[in-house]
C-alpha cells in the first residue's frame, strides 16, 4: 500500500506545473484572437471599394538655353569678286 502511495506521489511530482498550463491557455487565446482579427482584417481589405486618388497639384517646366552666336565658327570664309571689263576706247 505504501508503495502505491509513493508511486502516485512520484507521478504527481513528474506532472507539469499549473503555471505552464496557464501560460499555454493565455497563448492559445491570444493566437486565436490574433488569427481571427487578421482574417477579418484581410476580408475587409478585399471588400473595401478602391478609392480613386486624383492629383490636385501638377507641375510643369519651362526651359531655354542661350548659346553664343559665334559658337562653332572657328574659321570664316569670305569672297571677293571683280569683273574686268574691256576698255571701251580700245
Amino acid at each position, binding site marked *: 500500500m505504501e508503495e502505491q502511495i509513493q508511486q502516485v506521489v512520484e507521478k504527481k511530482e513528474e*506532472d*507539469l*506545473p*499549473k503555471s*505552464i*498550463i496557464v501560460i*499555454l*491557455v493565455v*497563448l*492559445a487565446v491570444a*493566437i*486565436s484572437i*490574433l*488569427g*481571427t482579427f*487578421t*482574417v477579418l482584417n*484581410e*476580408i475587409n481589405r*478585399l471588400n473595401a*471599394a478602391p*478609392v*480613386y*486618388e*486624383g*492629383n*490636385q*497639384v*501638377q*507641375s*510643369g*517646366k*519651362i*526651359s*531655354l*538655353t*542661350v*548659346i*553664343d*552666336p559665334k*559658337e*562653332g565658327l572657328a574659321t570664316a570664309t569670305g569672297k571677293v569678286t571683280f569683273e574686268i571689263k574691256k576698255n571701251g576706247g580700245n
Partner: protein
Amino acid sequence: MVDISNRTLALLLVTAIVVSLGFTMFSLNKIDQASITGRALTQPGNVTLNIQDATSIYLYKSLVDFGAGYVNTTKATCATNATLNASYRYIDSNDNDCWVGTTEPPRPTGLALENDGNRNVTITIKGPTPAGFFQGQGAPIANISWKSRNNETGSCVSGLQATFISFDSTAQSACGRLLFTPSISDDLAIDIQVIIPAGLPVGGYSNSTIELTAAAVG
C-alpha cells in the same frame, strides 16, 4: 470521472495553438486566391454604387522647351529681343524668326491640362518671377508671362485669364471654373511667353517648377 493530468492538458493546448495557426494560414491563403466562380441562380439583383468626390487634374503637357539658341540681332526687327510664344502654335517674334540656333530650336506649344476628376475646379498657377527665371539677367526687358486658354470649347466658363501677365511667384488664378464634364469641354491650356533680351549671358534658363493647383468649386 478520471482527472486529466497537466501534461495531457498541455498537449491539448499545444494542439489547439497549432490548429488555430494552421486554420489562420489556410484562411488567409484562400482569401488571396478568392475569385468569382459562381453564377447567379436568380436573375434580379441590386447594385449599389457610391461615387466619391474626386478633385483632380492631369497636366498631360508639362514641358515648354524653347531649346538652344540666340537672338539673331542681324535682323533689324530682332535688335533688342526675341519674343517667343508657346501658344496654340509657336510664334517667334510675330513670325520674324528672331530665336535661332546652330540647329533649328524646337517649336513648343503651351502647357495643357485636363480636369479628370468629377468636380468643377478653380485652377491657380504659381511660377517663377522674371528675375528668378532669368537669374537676374536681362532686366528690364527679360520677361516670362502666361495666359490661360480654352483648349476645348467652353471648358473654362468663368475667370479665364485671357491676356498675358507676368508670373509673380504667388498663386495666380488661371480659371475660376473649369468643367469636368462633358469630356469634350474639360481641357485648359496655359500659354507661355518669354522675352529674351539680346546679349543675355550664355547658359541654361529654367524654373524648378510651375505649379498648377485645382480646388473644387460648385
